[in-house]
């Protein structure tokens, strides 16, 4: 670290908030605490199964995107319905 970085707030600010936020995101998605925290995984599997029941597509052709915002997680499904 050069002497100039010493006066640079970005460099001197602690890294603890980064650790905390990384852990929060990780643990929300790992779902190791029973079924409640694995809600997204369960929703995803069941919704894909329902889509496949009504539309003749293979389960792996249903595109699912999992996202995370500050206050909520999101699931986006993209299905190409054959004409």
């Amino acid at each position, binding site marked *: 670290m050069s002497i100039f970085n010493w006066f640079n707030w970005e460099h001197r600010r*602690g890294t603890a908030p980064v*650790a905390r936020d990384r852990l929060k995101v990780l643990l929300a998605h790992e779902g*190791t605490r029973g079924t409640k925290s694995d809600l997204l995984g369960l929703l995803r599997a069941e919704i894909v199964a329902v889509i496949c029941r009504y539309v003749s597509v293979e389960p792996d052709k249903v595109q699912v995107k999992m996202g995370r915002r500050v206050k909520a997680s999101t699931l986006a499904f993209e299905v190409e319905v054959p004409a």
Partner: protein
Amino acid sequence: MAKIVVVTSGKGGVGKTTSTAALGAALAQSGKTVAVVDFDVGLRNLDLVMGAERRVVFDFINVIHGTAKLSQALIRDKRLDTLWLLPASQTRDKDALTAAGVAKVIAQLRQKFDWVICDSPAGIERGAMLAMRHADAAVIVTNPEVSSVRDSDRIIGLLDAKTLKAEQGERVEKHLLITRYDAVRAGKGEMMSIDDVLEILSVPLLGVVPESQEVLRASNIGAPVTLSDASSAPARAYCDAMRRLKGEDLPMTIPSDAKNLFGKLFGRRAA
């Protein structure tokens, strides 16, 4: 009838054995009869930390196999006559610890003592699962560091699913013990704070043990830190944790032997 407590963490090197010895000795000092049990078969160390390594004749596996009686394997502490140690075996046979054998030994210990403290091995393999199996309460030892907190989360999930209590629809009482905490670094934002860790794990706090030279000094001489220097910061932290484990309602403070001004300002700040 004893209360069975497992000291667990998932991650290695966070202070399970140190905490088992310190809490066990603190409980014994308060007048209770205590057995500390080493579940780390193949890598036993509780005997060494307690200063009883040269007195081990029979061990946990001998008792399970019936080659020794429990009373022959239990080692009485030389400083506290209400504190006993059941050492683990140094065998390399991972399957030596059987579910039925552990159940039998725990049932006997339950009859003899007020408290049984089980020192879990690291990881989530057989030894760790058997150490938590019969627990009424769990002390989850965590360092304010990402890998330790993640592994603690994993262990909390297992405590809620894989213990006898959980299978009977009851709950294992869970307590978080934060060790190697540096209040000065947390104050500067260099280390996760107590609140950060509590927010992520949402388990009630049993105590905060500050990073201290006294912990290494105690293990060097083979004494639980609560016995080697009862006035040191970690000893006071463990004594408070022990009283909370017994159900006392104490204000949460972080003992400190900090000498500088910054340490004085932040060292005693409660969670």
